[in-house]
């Protein structure tokens, strides 16, 4: 022949050779090469290649058929046996499937919740490039972190740092009156922003154009919900909304409503220039205080770390050399869970949940393994026969794994139904809006497939490996003692399962205790019977005196006071130095402006000095007078402040605020007992109070709890009479405080449910094992009865074994639970002492034991009551 030989394409020939029996390779390979070369000579390379591929593909069905024909036959047999077993032992099948479905459903629900939390802000296309600039200020080992930053910061950074391509500030003002014709509401979600916001964030516009919507300073962009609220069915574009009763803005865009998984949910976007009219020019030049959130978008391929340094440099050029504030960047899509400054989500509780889901799933798998090994005796004869007839061990393993896969598949279907049914319940527990539809994402489906394979494999693994290893001669000899194999393994499994249940029960109890502690701890101020009226921007500067005298004329009203912030949530601070400070050392101190009767109304204890009083000029004197020590203004500080200043006797000492070149003096006239003015997760910080009679953002009215409705009605009437233009919106202080610990409350509720489920699954398994044990020992019981054993003796005999396992489970569970809970409690500055709660560990153990005993005794009694005649007559 002598022609040139051409190698066929590599990939298809490689595939071909993988599927062919090795002995045939050279011949078939040669045949393929020969034909390939023939076609190549006649019709060219392309046609030859195509021919090769077509050959390969058209061969696939043949290869498959030949390699699976036998497996298929066996598969049909396995499936038949599986279904037959399932039908014949309905009780066991029910226990298996119920346990597995509940376990899988729990895992699914938990994964749904967790992935929802991780999805936060992911809908913003540029989420990976948008950063919020936070401010950190460390003094005396205490770091103050704020998600707000100075107003001029973001525009300056966009000019001076080349990596910053876009910026937008978001100024947040609450309680803004918004009106369209006769529709008037107060809105909390108005944000004053830079036009760049629509380029940075993904706020899809259903009408209006992203490029021009916010360029005109008199424009406003609203959400669909707001469009309906103010304009009904009319087209909102071009219509006018009036803010603050005087600021007319034209609607230039309508954006889609925000999804449930975002914290940035403005209802109205207004160009930030409009703030000038309210706050003046100073607002835009103030580098000293943190007023609004600043977001910047970085050019592609720049890391936060490198830009952070540049932003810090640029920032330091604008502020005093000893400013001390440090800027940090928070990536938008990590902000919800991983922000160091203010994480809105709680990532550690998500990890706890995931662990719980895993544990419950494990408990369900253990159930399956347990029952399968216990039942293995019944299957041993089948295995023996199969082996004698020629089954290889591999085939048997495949059979048993396959069997558990069938169970897992059935359970998976039930689990999906359960998860669908209970998701609303879960949502109402956590207050989230997790959607079931999330399940149909590719990753999630892959996850479900993963869980399925894991569950099927894990739960089938032990019976598969154990049963397939049995020697047929042993099984088929009549002396084979059924069910004695794997006893130790089964014990370990039950112990693990109950340990899981006990850990969850203990955690639930301790969570409950800590929550109770948080809710009931004496905060140092009165919170019961306090009605708080939120004041309007238009009225909060007005004197409270007329309202106070009107209200106090009624004996049901015990006190009235105004304050800038409530004693439960004081969030403003500044930095001060003090008399006797070395090197003008500065610390941060929280502050609040309060009325004369603030301390009385909230029952805050004065430990030294006096309260504010109209008799002293220094209490009321204006801010600007305080630049000389003689004119100093009076303040009241808390014990913590006095401690940090290092003052033995704080009365008449001065606190000094350095403001540029000016120094302002504040004289301490009183010291109050420390009270908790923020969450109990944090320890108490220094605080100072000023007197102010016209900063009454909140009007707090203390009332007796009898005749509540009438009292509220009376307050409302008085309010309407004195402030007719302001709405009467009120809330109860204790309710707001309760809401503060919502995440703890929902964690506790979740644990209550999940530990209940874990116990349920554990009991299902125990029920199966107990009934199996009773069945296996039925002859023994019969003989014992004949010989005169009483029913209680028999019950004790049967229960003893299981009881011992549960007791052992306690020994393992307690230390694990102890260390896990201790590290959880460390997250709270104020917490219950775990050592004082050890009783709950015992309680959980006793509870688990009691439940286990009831389950087992149920079966034991049944066995003990059976007629000996029935069990012994075939002997």
């Amino acid at each position, binding site marked *: *022949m*002598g*022609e040139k*030989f051409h*190698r066929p394409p590599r990939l298809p020939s490689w595939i071909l050779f993988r599927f062919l029996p090795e002995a*045939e390779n*050279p*011949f*078939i*390979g*040669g*045949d*393929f*090469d*020969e*034909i390939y*070369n023939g076609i190549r000579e006649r019709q060219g390379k392309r046609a030859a290649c195509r021919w090769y591929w*077509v*050959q390969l593909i*058209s*061969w696939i069905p*043949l*290869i498959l058929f*030949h390699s699976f024909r036998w497996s298929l036959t066996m598969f049909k047999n396995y499936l038949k046996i599986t279904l037959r077993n399932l039908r014949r032992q309905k009780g066991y099948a029910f226990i298996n499937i119920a346990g597995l479905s509940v376990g899988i459903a729990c895992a699914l629900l938990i994964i749904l919740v967790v992935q929802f939390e991780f999805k936060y802000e992911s809908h913003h296309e540029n989420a990976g490039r948008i950063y919020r600039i936070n401010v950190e200020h460390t003094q005396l080992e205490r770091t103050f972190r704020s998600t707000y930053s100075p107003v001029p910061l973001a525009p300056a950074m966009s000019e001076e740092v080349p990596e910053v391509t876009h910026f937008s500030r978001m100024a947040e003002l609450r309680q803004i009156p918004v009106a369209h014709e006769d529709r008037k509401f107060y809105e909390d979600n108005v944000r004053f922003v830079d036009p760049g916001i629509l380029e940075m964030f993904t706020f899809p516009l259903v009408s209006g154009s992203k490029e021009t919507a916010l360029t005109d300073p008199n424009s406003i962009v609203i959400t669909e919900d707001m469009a309906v609220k103010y304009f009904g069915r009319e087209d909102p574009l071009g219509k006018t909304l009036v803010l603050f009763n005087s600021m007319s803005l034209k609607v230039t865009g309508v954006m889609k409503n925000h999804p449930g998984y975002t914290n940035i949910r403005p209802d109205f976007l207004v160009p930030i220039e409009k703030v000038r009219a309210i706050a003046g020019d100073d607002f835009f030049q103030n580098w000293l205080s943190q007023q609004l959130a600043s977001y910047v978008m970085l050019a592609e391929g720049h890391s936060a770390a490198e830009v952070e340094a540049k932003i810090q440099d640029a920032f330091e050029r604008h502020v005093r050399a000893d400013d001390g504030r440090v800027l940090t960047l928070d990536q938008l899509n990590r902000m919800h869970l991983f922000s160091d400054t203010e994480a809105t989500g709680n990532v550690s509780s998500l990890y706890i949940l995931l662990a719980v889901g895993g544990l419950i799933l494990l408990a369900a798998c253990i159930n399956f393994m347990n029952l399968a090994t216990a039942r293995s005796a019944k299957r041993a004869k089948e295995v023996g026969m199969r082996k004698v007839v020629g089954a290889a061990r591999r085939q048997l393993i495949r059979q048993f794994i396959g069997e558990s896969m069938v169970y897992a598949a059935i359970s998976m279907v039930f689990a999906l139904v359960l998860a669908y049914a209970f998701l609303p319940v879960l949502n109402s527990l956590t207050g989230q809006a997790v959607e079931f539809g999330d399940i149909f994402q590719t990753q999630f489906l892959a996850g479900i497939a993963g869980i399925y394979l894991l569950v099927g494999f894990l739960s089938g693994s032990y019976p598969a490996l154990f049963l397939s290893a049995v020697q047929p001669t042993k099984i088929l000899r009549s002396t084979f003692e059924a069910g004695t194999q794997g006893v130790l393994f089964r014990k370990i499994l039950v112990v693990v399962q109950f340990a899981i249940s006990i850990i969850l029960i203990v955690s639930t109890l301790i969570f409950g205790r800590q929550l109770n502690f948080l809710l009931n701890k004496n905060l140092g101020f009165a919170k019961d019977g306090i009605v708080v009226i939120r004041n309007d921007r238009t009225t909060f500067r007005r004197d409270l005196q007329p309202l106070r005298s009107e209200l106090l004329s009624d004996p049901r009203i015990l006190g009235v006071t105004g304050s800038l912030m409530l004693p439960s949530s004081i969030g403003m601070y500044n930095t001060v130095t003090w008399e006797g400070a070395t090197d003008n050392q500065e610390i941060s101190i929280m502050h609040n402006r309060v009325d004369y009767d603030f301390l009385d109304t909230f029952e805050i204890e004065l430990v030294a000095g006096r309260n504010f009083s109209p008799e002293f000029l220094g209490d009321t004197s204006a801010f600007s007078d305080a630049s000389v020590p003689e004119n100093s203004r009076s303040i009241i500080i808390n014990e913590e402040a006095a401690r940090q200043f290092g003052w033995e006797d704080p009365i008449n000492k001065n606190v000094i605020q350095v403001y540029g070149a000016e120094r302002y003096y504040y004289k301490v006239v009183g010291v109050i007992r420390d009270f908790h003015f923020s969450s109990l997760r944090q320890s108490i910080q220094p605080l100072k109070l000023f007197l102010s009679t016209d900063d009454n953002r909140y009007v707090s009215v203390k009332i007796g709890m009898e005749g509540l409705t009438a009292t509220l009605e009376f307050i409302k009437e008085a309010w309407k009479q004195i402030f007719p233009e302001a709405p009467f919106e009120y809330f109860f202080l204790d309710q707001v405080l309760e809401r503060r610990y919502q995440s703890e409350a929902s964690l506790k509720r979740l644990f209550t449910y999940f530990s209940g489920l874990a116990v349920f699954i554990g009991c299902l398994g125990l029920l199966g094992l107990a009934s199996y044990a009773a069945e296996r020992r039925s002859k023994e019981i019969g003989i014992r009865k004949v010989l005169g054993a009483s029913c209680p003796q028999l019950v004790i005999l049967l229960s003893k074994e299981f009881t011992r396992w549960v007791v052992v489970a306690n020994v393992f569970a307690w230390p694990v639970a102890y260390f896990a809970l201790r590290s959880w409690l460390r997250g709270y500055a104020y917490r219950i002492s775990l050592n004082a709660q050890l009783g709950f560990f015992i309680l959980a153990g006793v509870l688990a034991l009691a439940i286990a005993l009831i389950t087992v005794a149920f079966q034991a009694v049944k066995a003990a009551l059976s007629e000996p005649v029935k069990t012994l007559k075939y002997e």
Partner: protein
Amino acid sequence: MTITNYLTRKEELILLAVHKLGDSASLVKVREILNVSTGHEWTVGNVYVPLDRMTKLGYLETRVGEPTARRGGKAVKYYVLTRLGNEALAELKRVHDTMWNGVSDPALEK
């Protein structure tokens, strides 16, 4: 004889092709004959699988030939009819002839 019960039509044709080729019945040659006489393209799998099956059933034997350059230096496998194979073919021919005998419908002629 009930041999024919075990052979498909495809296998029959392949068996016949092997017979015609005598000593040089390789897969490539068998496939060429089939392509030419049936008028459509046979895939390698469609030829190989029946050849293999009939070898296992004992109708065919294999003989390994010399490697050639054209086959990338790989040896060729020749198929030869066994006694059983010959008998099967004879049986098929007899059945065929018997059945066709006396059929003279012009509609069946090309």
